[in-house]
């Protein structure tokens, strides 16, 4: 598992980016945490910089939307999903269990 940091460091509606083998973004949606691959599948942009509305994040560059629960894009320009990862909170500390491959996430 990868250490993300203290739960207090991820305010409501915010996201943090951590470097695993690829960057991963962890979102706090009304107290529920979601982790996905940080890089938009359309073009190089950080989803942690994106706009969060409900359980979706909008890419800051081209407005592709991804469902934080499933990683699925909701429409163009993204065609491929982002991987989702399990988030573990232990004693106020947030960890991410990185999904091993794209196949495993599908």
């Amino acid at each position: 598992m990868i250490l993300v940091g203290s739960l207090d460091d991820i305010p409501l509606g915010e996201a943090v980016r951590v470097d695993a083998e690829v960057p991963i973004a962890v979102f706090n949606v009304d107290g529920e945490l979601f982790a996905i691959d940080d890089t938009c599948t359309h073009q190089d942009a950080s989803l942690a910089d994106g706009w969060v509305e409900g359980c979706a994040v909008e890419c800051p560059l081209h407005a592709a939307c991804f469902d934080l629960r499933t990683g699925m894009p909701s429409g163009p320009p993204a065609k491929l999903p982002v991987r989702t990862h399990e988030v573990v909170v232990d004693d106020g500390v947030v960890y991410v269990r990185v999904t091993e491959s794209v196949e495993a996430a599908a």
Partner: protein
Amino acid sequence: MRTVAVIGGSLAGLSAARALREQGYDGRIVVVGEEDLFPYDRPPLSKEFLAGKIEMAELALTTPTEDAALDLEWRLGDPATGLDRGARAVVLASGREVPADGVVVATGARARTLPGDLHGVHTLRTADDAVALRRDLVVSRRLVVIGGGFIGAEVASTARDMGLEVTVIESDPVPLGRVLGADLAATCAELHRDNGVHLITGEVVTGLAGNGRVSAVHLAGGRTEPADVVVVGIGAAPNVEWLAGSGIEHDHRGVWTDDAGATNVPQVVAAGDCAFSPCAYAGTAVRHEHWTNAVRQPAAAVSTLLGATPAPPTPPYFWSDQYGARLQFAGHRLPDDAVEIIDGDPADRRFVAGYRHNGELVAVFAMNQPKLFGRWRRQLSPRIVPAGLP
């Protein structure tokens, strides 16, 4: 309606076709395209694709699965040459006709060129353009870019990465000055200089020199810039000539529409780079050449075609990636707008600037600050909603 003809096979045409299906239209859709290619994404053509970092297949805008679900009939490599209102048909270059009781005009724009016929002189609009330009760049040493707009700056940035000596020539006192205002444009101009690009401003190109192949660019005042390859990035003209005689109002500015995409002819709407339409955020009629406009405007035009109410307009938005910097702009700046730095410092190349009209935030520009930009662009106010045709 039993058949809708979408004239234009790029992003706006595809967006129209998608919107037709999303909005419940289940009749025939025929998509007519000038290029013999399925719709592809153009923004990477001046960047990753030109640099050889991504392949054509990665630019595809549809997947076979999505395309099958849309159930489109493609007429590619056969551009529309006329619209016969009496026969309710679109005439193609091959002479074939597409009978249609609804038409979406999405024929886009083409790069403006300079007179002459020298090898080594390029424009950049299509995938073919990018392939040809790359072929020349990899064997060239000196690139001259004519025009310091976004395409010109992105090509300069990519070519610099490829190791070329690059000169950018801009006729205005500062590139992007009319878009961003002089101060913020100056901040962007520094990106050229910091990356070793020779920027010449306020000088007009008078011609190209060469014997078969370009060798130099002539400037007013007798100055000459040597060049092995030249990119002409001086804007685009709407593809509207094919509408001559159709009765659809249009001129050099584009196809005239109202703010919901309707032309003066019933059952004919227009959208994307070819449409000259009232824009609440500009306070006037404009022709937007932006990627996001080619996605959103067709959806509104399709609503109009189907007799539904279009979604309210969102502020115009565009971005540019150059020299590792991410530039984003939303809204529309007019010369009288007051500009202020909202966050950060232009000296750090990481900031957000806002433009105000009568105290209202009407446009926002950010460099390397995508998250804050996303916040501010949602707070923009329209200026006035212009009524009727331009």
